[in-house]
């Protein structure tokens, strides 16, 4: 089963490598990982999406907790949470396609953030399914490049 885990870590040199090394060394998988500073500049927040049965996930959370630089581990899967990601999509924007792109972007509440004579770059946020659906819609029009953040998450309430 798929789990979304938030990890609060000391904002120190090498922490990302400790986490990544733990996953690779123990054969756990990472589907996505996003990291940034939290409200407290000494603390970073990571969101890790991983997959495994109950025993694997139990080990993942225990092993994360065992790292000295890890302050807190929250597995969101058992609770209500908000999960979002952001994608930037650069797409072919030949004059005859521009109308169509804008229409699709509007449906998905996407925003054009960069324009050139041949391309549009569209920003979209949402849960994974929405981002996937958006990308699927744009594919036939000719996507040139995609950048996705991976999921970030927060408990509700």
């Amino acid at each position, binding site marked *: 089963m798929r789990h979304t885990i938030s990890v609060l870590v000391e904002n120190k040199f*090498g922490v990302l490598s400790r986490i990544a090394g733990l996953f690779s060394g123990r054969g756990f998988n990472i589907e996505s990982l996003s990291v940034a500073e939290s409200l407290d500049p000494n603390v970073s927040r990571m969101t890790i999406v991983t997959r495994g049965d109950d025993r694997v996930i139990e080990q993942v959370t225990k092993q994360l*907790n065992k790292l*000295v*630089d890890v*302050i807190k581990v929250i597995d969101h899967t058992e609770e209500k949470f908000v999960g979002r990601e952001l994608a930037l999509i650069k797409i072919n924007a030949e004059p005859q396609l521009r109308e169509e792109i804008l229409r699709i972007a509007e449906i998905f509440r996407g925003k054009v953030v960069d324009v050139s004579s041949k391309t549009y770059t569209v920003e979209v946020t949402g849960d994974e399914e929405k981002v996937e659906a958006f990308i699927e819609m744009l594919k036939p029009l000719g996507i040139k490049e995609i950048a996705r953040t991976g999921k970030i998450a927060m408990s509700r309430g």
Partner: protein
Amino acid sequence: MKKTGAEILIECLIKEGVDTIFGYPGGAVLPIYDALFKAPIKHILVRHEQGGVHAADGYARASGKVGVCLVTSGPGATNTVTGIATAYMDSIPLVILTGQVPTAMIGNDAFQEADIVGITRPCTKHNYLVRDINDLSTIIKEAFYIASTGKPGPVLIDLPKDVMAASTIFKYPEKVHIRGYQPTYEGHIGQVKKASDALMAAKRPILFIGGGIILSSAYKELLELSEFTHTPVTTTLMGLGGFPSDHPLSLGMCGMHGTFSSNMALTNTDLIIGIGARFDDRVTGKVDEFATGAKIVHIDIDPTSISKNIPAHIPIVGDAKDVLKKLIGLLKKEKKNWKKDNQEWLNQVEEWKVTHPLSYKQGKNIIKPQYVIEQIHEVTKGEAIITTEVGQNQMWTAQYYKFKRPRTLLTSGGLGTMGYGFPAAIGAQVAFPDKIVFDIAGDGSIQMNIQELATAVQYRLPVKVAILNNSFLGMVRQWQELFYNKRYSYSCMECQPDFVKLAEAYGAVGLRVENPDDVKKALKEAIEIPKPVLIDFIVDREENVYPMVPAGKPISEMLLV
């Protein structure tokens, strides 16, 4: 007054109670060695950094203190990796100090530069690169704290040369607070109550103990629990010495080369109380068929050990000593005739012990390796500190030296490091100059760190080495015999040094023994000689370690002869 980084380091070590360092100097640590020159710390100059870490490890295992090792950058640091991994797998408290190139040069592929913090991340409990001299004393304090608390382990501190040469006002932190590191010592009383109820209800209980008993100094509590409840005890390799081997309730070691009684008891029990043991594959054999009828209580200070290999019905996170005290306290309030209730089970266990004891036959002509170990046990009255290498020598030692006390067997259990035993013996001898320290070795493994003979001679450490010389990598050959149709692919050591002459060349004493009648005499002689002695026992070349559970089989399926 301002002090240099190197001076602060030494001062912090003294404050941590460090009186001995095992080390090897080099360019990047010259400032540290300069500060060490006049410091009240004993420095043992080893001959290879791997030997240095193993020696610090042997010192730590024998004494219970944190072992300290100091090496230079680059190759000095990378040579410590096997030693660090060895200590990590067996949860031994070490602080490894490595030199590093100056901070401005880090990342530039400077001379003798290696990213040792990156390299050792997966085999240390934690590690540090000190980039600012003002962090130095806090980092050292934290390192010793992390190494020695919770589930102990090695901590590495990488020390750039410029940080060691810089100076600042020295402030020693009296307290440590690490928000991400707060080990649980106290077992949850509700869980302990469940364990107590389970033991009350069990018909065929067994205590299964590992190195955690020794690390938490819980042997008295274990003995009390076992005797009070008339519950037999089996140990892992790391648990040997945690319970007296000559006790009627002791079943000896379990697992791949465990005793028949241990493995049968673990297979037929209805309750395993695992204490400070991690149910590793050498113990469980085929996991799916391990103790299928048993409820499992698992007591461990490390939550990740619990339910990692074998799911626990009653997990208890905590220090073994604390949990056992609570458990005994609860059980003493209960009314139960333990002796009577467990008698049937104890009779069964005793029958397994009597019908299938460990055995070998010593003939007239060829020395059996097991005989050498039994004789070492006899001449040292079971009071020596024993280290081993890895392979047959290690398993025979585990089987035939009857360990009575904790911290008397020093062996690389988890990583299985050949070359561990001899430097570890040196470290143990440094910790206990008046004790007899024996390294029980094979002719293969002794050669992996034989250069440390010079260290033993230099510091007049009268370590004894018993080489069980079969001119084979014995355990490899045993597997090849049993599972690869006797194709002895590169396991035969066709060219061996003359170990007697080699010992003499180093300034130690060498003895050779080829006749069973001379074994005891040679051992006594070696103990009398106040120098390092290497005894080359020419033993039966194709003797095997039995019982043996083939890899991937359940532990009830033992090869017995």
